[in-house]
């Protein structure tokens, strides 16, 4: 059986069986979700083990017809980027199960079922090689998240869930239209075939056509990332979501956007991407600085982390649109880093919330005194998040900024301001929550971490150190894939020629 199909089948089967479990025994649901997500993770470990690191193309391919007219295939495969994002999803799902163990007390069965469905959708997004199939998974992943926020969220959960849904839908409709348009032009949904046609010149988009198509895809992805100024759904969704929802949303779902841009926008519409790059870079840099500044003044921990995501994701976009090998590698690495470190931040904020039942920073202070290990882990995560060398984010940020500097030094100058600001908002947060005198409420409500919480947190810390110290375990397959994307983005279909009409031709004569 195809490994990727197995990886899709496991959470899907898990979801279906979870629905059949009796409502009366929530513990069965928890155990089942943990078991099946752990199994999925273990199976997914076979991917990097069997992945041919020397090859740039898709691997573990399975391509079978699904619907005959229009011709839609069940076509799955991974490249060096999708590989790690898939692993990130399977890695984080069991952690999410663990941290929801006690905090979710109503409709337990449905919660864990939705979590598994979410995993199914996310895995699908990163392996689908058929545009229509991609769109299906894209939407499938949206639904469970909508319910996770809407049912198990905090006070303003309905508002946040609807806002999240509408923002994303607005983008996906554009994308769907573009996908159908591309199908009408090319006669296929198969992504590899499309790329092949573009390479060989059998398919080409006129400049204006390419621009509109690019924008349709890009806006859908940009909302998901989110790129400034399309980000306002994110703070609301994060604040209202339950911890597991915030973790999956920040760590994996945001990467659907950046993955989409990298995987689809650049190779499909190379000249439009290049034409728009300076504008997008400006938005990315605004996002970096703006997100950091707004983050600095947030009174709510989750909102602070949410705005910091806007800032961090700005680096990813900057890296992608620097069109340099270093920038692209850094961008992909930063996607994974953000998944680990911001995921960990949300986990830890969730642990604080579970104890003190507040997300307001002012309700804390002196937590280090009562929960020193929690404070230590939070500190390590904070340091990872602000890009301390030997922890993961540094490698990504360095590559992105270096790539940007190679493309345009000024970009790096502005973007690097974000690195200063990240230290400001994170350390200030840390000081107000963990340092100082412990008040009565903090003293009586904040025990240190228990074994289950350790089990959820230690893997994240291990990954931060591993990815920071020995990036060679992860980067080579990424480099192979990004190098291919870069070469695909070199295919300058008519655009350049049209900008300088007839000069080439005239010279030839």
């Amino acid at each position: 059986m195809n490994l990727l199909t197995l990886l899709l089948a496991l959470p899907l089967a898990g979801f279906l069986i979870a629905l059949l479990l009796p409502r009366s025994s929530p513990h069965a649901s928890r155990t089942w979700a943990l078991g099946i997500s752990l199994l999925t993770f273990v199976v997914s470990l076979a991917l990097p083990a069997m992945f041919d690191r020397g090859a740039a193309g898709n691997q573990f391919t399975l391509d079978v017809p699904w619907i005959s007219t229009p011709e839609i295939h069940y076509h799955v495969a991974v490249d060096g980027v999708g590989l790690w994002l898939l692993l990130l999803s399977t890695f984080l799902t069991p952690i999410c199960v663990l941290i929801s163990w006690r905090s979710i007390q109503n409709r337990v069965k449905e919660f864990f079922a939705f979590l598994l469905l979410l995993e199914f959708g996310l895995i699908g997004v990163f392996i689908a090689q058929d545009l229509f199939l991609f769109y299906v998974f894209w939407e499938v992943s949206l639904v469970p998240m909508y319910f996770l926020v809407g049912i198990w969220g905090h006070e303003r959960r309905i508002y946040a869930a609807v806002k999240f849904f509408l923002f994303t839908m607005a983008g996906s409709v554009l994308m769907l239209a573009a996908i159908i348009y591309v199908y009408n032009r090319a006669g296929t949904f198969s992504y590899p075939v499309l790329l092949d046609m573009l390479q060989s010149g059998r398919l080409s988009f006129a400049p204006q056509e390419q621009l509109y198509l690019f924008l349709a895809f890009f806006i859908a992805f940009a909302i998901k990332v989110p790129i400034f100024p399309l980000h306002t759904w994110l703070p609301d969704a994060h604040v209202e979501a339950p911890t597991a929802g915030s973790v999956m949303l920040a760590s994996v779902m945001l990467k659907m956007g950046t993955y989409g841009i990298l995987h689809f926008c650049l190779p499909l519409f190379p000249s439009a991407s290049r034409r728009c790059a300076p504008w997008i870079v400006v938005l990315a840099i605004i996002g970096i600085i703006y997100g950091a500044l707004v983050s600095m003044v947030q009174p709510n921990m989750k909102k602070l982390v949410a705005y910091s995501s806007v800032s961090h994701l700005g680096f990813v976009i900057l890296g992608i649109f620097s069109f340099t090998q270093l920038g692209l590698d850094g961008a992909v690495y930063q996607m994974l880093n953000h998944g680990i470190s911001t995921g960990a931040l949300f986990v830890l904020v969730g642990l604080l919330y579970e104890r003190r039942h507040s997300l307001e920073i002012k309700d804390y202070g002196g937590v280090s005194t009562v929960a020193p290990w929690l404070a230590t882990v939070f500190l390590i995560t904070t340091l990872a998040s602000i890009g301390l060398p030997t922890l993961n984010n540094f490698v990504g940020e360095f590559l992105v900024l270096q790539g940007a500097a190679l493309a345009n030094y000024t970009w790096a100058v502005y973007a690097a301001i974000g690195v200063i600001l990240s230290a400001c908002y994170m350390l200030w947060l840390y000081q107000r929550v963990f340092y100082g005198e412990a008040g009565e409420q903090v003293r009586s409500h904040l025990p240190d971490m228990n074994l289950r919480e350790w089990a959820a947190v230690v893997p994240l810390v291990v990954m931060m150190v591993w990815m920071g110290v020995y990036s060679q375990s992860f980067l080579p397959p990424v480099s192979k894939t990004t190098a291919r994307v870069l070469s695909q983005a070199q295919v300058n279909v008519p655009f350049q020629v049209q900008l300088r009409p007839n000069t080439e031709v005239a010279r030839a004569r």
Partner: protein
Amino acid sequence: MQLWLIPLLPFAGFLINGLFGRRFSKGVVNVFAIGSVVLSFAWVLKTILGLGDLTSAHVEHYFTWIQSGTFNIGCDFAVDRLTAVMLLVVTGVGSLIHIYAIGYMAHEHGPHHGGYYRFFAYLNLFMFFMLVLVLGANFLVLFVGWEGVGLCSYLLIGFYFDKKFATDAGNKAFIVNRIGDFGFALAMFYIVKTFGSLDFATVFQKAPTAPESALTLIGLLLMVGAAGKSAQIPLYVWLPDAMAGPTPVSALIHAATMVTAGVYMTARSFAIYSHAPAALDVIAIIGVATAFFAATIGIAQNDIKKVFAYSTVSQLGYMFLGVGSHAVSAGIYHLVTHAFFKALLFLGSGSVIHALSGEQDLRQMGGLRSKIPWTFWTMMCAAVAISGIPPFAGFFSKDAILVAAYAHAPWMYWLGTLTAGITAFYVFRAMFMAFFGDYRGHEHHPHESPPVMMIPLVILAALSLAGGYLFKVPQFLAPMFPLAEAPENFTLVAVSVGAGVAGILLAYVMYVAQPGMADSLASGMKGLYTLVYNKYFVDEIYDATVVNPLVGGSRILLWRFADVGIIDGIANGIGSRARDIGGILRRLQSGNIRSYAAWVLFGGVLVIVAMGMAGGVR
């Protein structure tokens, strides 16, 4: 040669104490904490002896850290003569301070039980990063150490984390350093853009062929980083506040080792600077200006540690003046001697504070000479050393810098000499206020510190007295930084020594012979005194011009107005417009069959009319 053992030993100490120290007795914590550092020192000695004369760098490659395309950064360590000097200072002085800390921290627990192990774990972690910093064979590995020591500095400044002023000081240190690191990082990006590599060997070999504008830009950006780490104008503001940490930390991190990292880095990059005279000039000017400026602030401080903190800022300025005047080896020389006497001054003041159960205010001291004689005499050794009195350690190095400064620009020599006089004045002012006159404090039984604290003091005192003579750093570094052929100018030496003696005498007159004189002078020049006493209000100016506008602007303008008001307002506006339209359309869905029928009829007619107008059905 297993260079990796040098930093890994303290790191092991950090891991063991950090993970299990809570359950250890103090004795066990000491074994791992001090043992690891002393072993590391021993390994440094063995390495340096084993490497022969070290005329070229000994490089070791461990693994590839980051690779992207053809760009490659290895985890590489290297030792050359400059590194050897730094290694000896860091592990040697570091060992002494670790031993001293056993005594100093014996009664200190930090905010909750277990502060003792935490303190030593952080201190060991610091040693690890500092050693990585000096061993790194490329800019990025150096940067690992660079940021890492900043982290440890942050943790140790905020060691008493229940005190807001301590954690504020920690944040300030980290963030101001980040501003410096911003420059450092940009310098690295430009180095890669210019040379395609960050390896010292490659970059410095190619440096002579690069355009001067690029080298100047790189040099200036690196200087921004150095100014942050080594507390130079305009980024020096964090160092005085950093004294909130325990005194051994002030001695080790904020005097002897970490703050000299900037000097080390500029010396290391001298191949770039030597082709960028403009950047070098900027270093010299910032150095001499900082030396003078900080020394003047030192005059009016009453906290014994604050005096020495501003003194450190000032002395670091001298080191930059040396580097900027093409006398790199003199700068490093001063780095070494400064490590001896400034560590001693801090450890000595720690001993004073220890004797007085935590009192740091000079006005609450006095007459301690007879009560804690060992502390007094050892600190006196440091005081004469820093004042540049021959033949003690500071004389040699300061003199080498000032002579080079004269060759570079005479006004820098004169300002540096004036600063030497001020230095001697404020150091002896502190000494006289603490140890002479009558005791003014509240602690009834000032007691001498235990031997575990006194032995490091005595060793450092010996080094402060004889270190300049014993360790001829410029000669040792001559293969890397050729000695300038400056003629022996006895006048210059005599003038600078004279300035030091004059400073001591003035302090004696004002604080011992005629004790009332200082106060009447201060009230006589009230405006100037207030200005200096309040450190020229630099912190207040930074708060008013940078910090407050940034925070306030972000809160009101960016968050409340732009984000919530405009951007989200537009999104919600579209939402509610859609709902309004929906509300109108909803009226069509009345649920009334007759009205539906009417609409169907209306629609049908409309279709027919439209078809008719379009030309009918063919």
